[in-house]
């Protein structure tokens, strides 16, 4: 993915130790993750630091042996490369801060995974007492996982809103939050295998069936979220109500994906999954097209409302 040099706040001093004129000492805006004045940064940091440590330790402990660990990492690495290629294709030449890109990945791959895993486990036990065992994944996963990824996307976009946002920013960061989640989830599933054979079969299956679903869903939500923030930046009506269906529709697709089998005949279930995947792709492509058009319009606007691609961040 495209990378940009970080811009940092600094003051300038001449070699004599005397201060340079005030116009040269004005701090430059920093559209990076580490915006210490933004409360959402501290929210990110509070969860990200322990989550990264927890994820690393758990991944190593979960592996049945070193060979399985390496195989699982390789499989997830293949998926990571494919996701990177998708990002390059949709973002074209637009550049975004590395720290926000990594921050989105960390939230999805460490924070959201950790909290969602814990909450899903709790919910499974609770739903069992209501007789809803078979529907536990359908009920719990979309609520916990999609809301956590939404939170991560909101945090990153809030930090990115130091510059004028575009819809494509929402697609980018939403996709990254979802991609981080999916990569670590697939790693966890692959590592849960008892031996190398089950690790490989699980890893390959999750690579093929429902590839990048979480990223596609979160990218769609991110597009709408960025649109609303963009309208606020442009001092237009925000249309925040659009965020509700933008969050609920992917949640509904997620719930449908996690439904228990509708038949013992597995081909029917695969057909349903295929339909859901096509719907997800359609929503994602619509978001990408919308994002590109939004970026194009943004680039054509007068100075002061330039897109992030032109800011040279």
């Amino acid at each position, binding site marked *: 993915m495209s990378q940009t040099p970080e811009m940092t706040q600094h003051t300038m001093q001449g070699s004599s130790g005397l201060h340079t004129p005030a116009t040269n000492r004005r701090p430059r805006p920093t559209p990076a993750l580490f915006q210490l004045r933004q409360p959402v940064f501290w929210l990110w940091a509070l969860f990200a630091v322990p989550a990264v440590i927890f994820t690393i330790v758990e991944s190593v402990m979960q592996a049945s042996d070193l060979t399985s660990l390496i195989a699982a990492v390789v499989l997830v690495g293949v998926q990571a490369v494919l996701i990177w290629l998708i990002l390059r294709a949709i973002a074209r030449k637009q550049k975004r801060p590395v720290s926000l890109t990594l921050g989105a990945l960390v939230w999805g791959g460490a924070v959201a995974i950790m909290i969602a895993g814990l909450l899903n486990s709790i919910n499974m036990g609770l739903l069992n*007492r209501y007789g809803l065992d078979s529907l536990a994944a359908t009920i719990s996963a979309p609520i916990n996982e999609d809301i956590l990824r939404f939170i991560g996307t909101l945090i990153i976009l809030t930090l990115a809103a130091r510059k004028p946002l575009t819809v494509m920013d929402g697609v980018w960061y939403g996709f990254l939050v979802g991609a981080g989640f999916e990569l670590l989830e697939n790693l966890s599933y692959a590592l849960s295998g008892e031996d190398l054979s089950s690790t490989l079969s699980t890893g390959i299956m999750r690579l093929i069936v429902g590839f990048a679903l979480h990223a596609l869903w979160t990218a769609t939500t991110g597009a709408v979220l960025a649109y609303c923030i963009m309208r606020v930046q442009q001092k237009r009506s925000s249309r925040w109500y659009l965020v509700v269906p933008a969050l609920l529709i992917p949640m509904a697709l997620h719930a449908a994906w996690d439904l228990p089998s509708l038949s*013992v005949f597995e081909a029917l279930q695969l057909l349903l999954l295929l339909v859901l995947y096509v719907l997800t792709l359609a929503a994602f492509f619509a978001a990408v097209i919308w994002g590109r058009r939004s970026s194009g319009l943004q680039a054509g606007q007068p100075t002061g409302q330039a897109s992030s691609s032109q800011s040279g961040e």
Partner: protein
Amino acid sequence: MPARLAEPPAAMDGVTQPRWAPFFLCLALLALIVSVPVALGIAAPARAEGAVGVYERVKFSDESGARPAIAGFIAPEGWLRTGDTEASEDPVEQAEFASPHDEAWLAAELRTAVDSPARLLRESAPLGALASPVKPFDAGNGLETRFIEYDLEAGAGVEQLFAVCNTSAEMSCLLFTVNDFDRVHTFGTVLPDVAAVLKTAEVFS
């Protein structure tokens, strides 16, 4: 004078001002997803061990014949699994359930290489049921369903056998045995929970 005191304070324009609305929204959402399970846990009712939940599917598989057969049905919600009390997504050889107050009992198994539903029922029923007719039953599952019922022993209740079969060259059937101990229904009627089970039955081979 220290250098930093001579500098004018950095101006906080609109883009550097702290944005509290997204922060509190994130906190509210986190609180929501954490508080909902807490509330559910407090209000959760007690549930009998082995009770069947909503939309629990029982699967059968038999690959011993010339053509593999798979079958399944949705277990009766609220009934209790007898034997293994844990629900399983893996195929089973036989499934048994008892109604919540032990007034009825249901068992199911997959039979392959079946000549006909009627013959399967005759072979599975006791000799005393020879006089009982094999009747068709419209289960609403798109499969051929026939049943036989008999009441052979005083106090033992009415027993019904249902054969739900596909129509492929090598016929396979789900054989259901229902024992209604309390005789809450008359001959020819089917317990509602059993009818619901039959409606969800699937057989493929």
